[in-house]
C-alpha cells in the first residue's frame, strides 16, 4: 500500500538553528531518504518552501478568490512529504517513526486512495 508521510513542524525553528545544526538536520533527512530508497519503498519526496510563500485559491460562484498565506494558520506547518510503498500501516508507522521530522515535529501517515 502507498502512504503519504506529511511532515509538520514549526518552520520558524529552522531559522533559529546554527549553520552547523542546519547541516546536521539536513544530513539526517538525507540519510532517511537514502534508507527509504535502499529499502525500495521510496516513491517520491519533497521539502516545501515556508508558508510565507504559500497562496490559497478557492472558486465560489464562478469567482476565484486568491489569498496570500497557507490554508490553515497552525502552530506547526506542513514542511514536506514522503510518498512510500509498504506492506501495511505498521510498516508505514515504523518508517514514520524513523523520520527526523517525527522527533522535532509530527508526522501524519495517510493511506493513498487507491484508484485501481
Amino acid at each position, binding site marked *: *500500500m502507498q*502512504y503519504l508521510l506529511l511532515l509538520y513542524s514549526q518552520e520558524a525553528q529552522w531559522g533559529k538553528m546554527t549553520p552547523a545544526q542546519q547541516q546536521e538536520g539536513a544530513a539526517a533527512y538525507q540519510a532517511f531518504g537514502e534508507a527509504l530508497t535502499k529499502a525500495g519503498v521510496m516513491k517520491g519526496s519533497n521539502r516545501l518552501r515556508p508558508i510565507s510563500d504559500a497562496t490559497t485559491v478557492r472558486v465560489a460562484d464562478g469567482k476565484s478568490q486568491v489569498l496570500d498565506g497557507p490554508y490553515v494558520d497552525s502552530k506547526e506547518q506542513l514542511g514536506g512529504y514522503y510518498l512510500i510503498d509498504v*506492506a*501495511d*500501516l*505498521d510498516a*508505514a*508507522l515504523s518508517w514514520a517513526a524513523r523520520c527526523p521530522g517525527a522527533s522535532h515535529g509530527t508526522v501524519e501517515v495517510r*493511506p493513498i486512495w487507491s484508484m*485501481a
Partner: protein
Amino acid sequence: VSEVPLQEGGEQARSTADAVARRSYGKLVAFLAARTRDVAAAEDALSEAFAAALGRWPVDGCPANPEAWLLTVARRKAIDVARGKIRGEIVAGQLQVMAEGLDAASDAEIPDQRLALLFACAHPAIEAGIRAPLMLQVVLGLDAKTIASAFLTSPAAMGKRLVRAKDKIRQAGIPFRVPEREELAARLDTVLEAIYAAFTEGWTDPGGSDVVRRDLTEEALFLAHLAAELLPQEPEALGLLALMLHAEARRRARRQADGEYVPLAEQDPALWDSQMIAEAESLLRRAGAMGSIGRYQLEGALQSAHVDRCRTGRANWTAVVQLYDALFALVGSPVVALNRALAIAEVDGAAAALAAMPDISTDARLAEYQPYWAARAELLVKTGAQAEAHRAYEIAIGLERDPAVRRFLQRRQAALPFTREGF
C-alpha cells in the same frame, strides 16, 4: 448472529449453529478477513452463511464439519459480492486471494487467527474507546445494540463508530498480525486493556439484574481466556484472566437474596466460586514464575490477598498496602491511590488514610467518582467527624446509579450517631 424463523425440525440445526457461532465466530471472521482486511464484508458473508445453515441443516442434516461448511458458504457469498462490486483487473486479484482461502478452507483444520484479529482491533491506530466494543463485535459476534447498552450509548452512535473502525482497518491497512517480540509487550497492553474495559463495563451493573451487562462480563472472560490460551508465555495475559476470575468468583456473594448490596468485608466466603478462585490462583503462580511483574498480576495478587484474609481471618493489610504501593508506582491512577488509602486505614488508622487520599483538586474526575466519597465518608466516621461524613455520604448517594448500592450508602448514612440524634 441474526435471528431466523425456525422451520420444523430446526431446533437442532439452530442449537448447532448457535454452538458453532459461540465457539468459532471470531475464528471464521479472522480467517475470512485476514488477507482482505475487510472485516465488515467477512461479517456480512458469515451472517448469510449462518442464515443458510439454518435453512439447509434441518433439511440435509448437520454437516460433519459445520465450521468448514460455514466457511465455504461464506467465501462463496464474499466472492459473489466482490464480483458485483468491483470491476477491472483488481477483481482477478481479489478473487485469486479468495480462491486461495477456499482451498485452505477445504482442509478440516481452519487456522486460528483470532489473536491477530484481537491485535488488529486493539491497534493503536484505532480510537481507544472503540477497541473493546470492536472486539466484542468482531471476535464474538455481539450486535451493536447489545454493545451500545453495555457502554451506555445509543445503538445508532455505537453502530457508526464500529463501522468507522472497520473502515479504518481496511483503508489504513492495519495488519492482521501478532506483533514481533520486541513490540509485543506494548501492543499486548492495548489488547488487555480493551478486554478489561469490556469486563468492567459488564460490572457497571453490579447486581447482575441486567442480562445484557451480565453477559458482557462472560464474553469478556471468554476473550481473556482466549488471550491467556493463545499467549501462555505472557504473564500479564495470565494476570488479567486471574484478576477477572477473582472478581467473577464473588459475584453471587455481592448480593443478598433480596438484591441488597454486600461489601467485601461482610460477604460469606461460602458463596464464592472456589473453582474460579483456584484457577485464578494457579494462573497467578504461573505468571509469577515468569519473573516479570505487571499491573494485572499486581491487581490479581491484591484480589488474592483479600480473598485469603476473608477466608482465614488473618489480617494481611501490611502486605496489601505494599501491593498497592507497587501498583500505584506502576499506573499512578487516583483510583489505585484511593484503594491504597483504605488499606492504610487498616494499618495506620483513619487519620493517616485521610492524609493519603488522592487530592481531588488534581483530578476533577474524582469529584464525580462515587467510591471516592463513600471511602471518604467511612474514614471520616472513624475519625469522629460525623457532620463531614454525613455530607460525604450525601454526595456519594447522589452520584450512585445502582439503587441497591444507593440504599446501602443510605443505611450507612442513617447509622451515623449524629443523624440518630435527629439533626
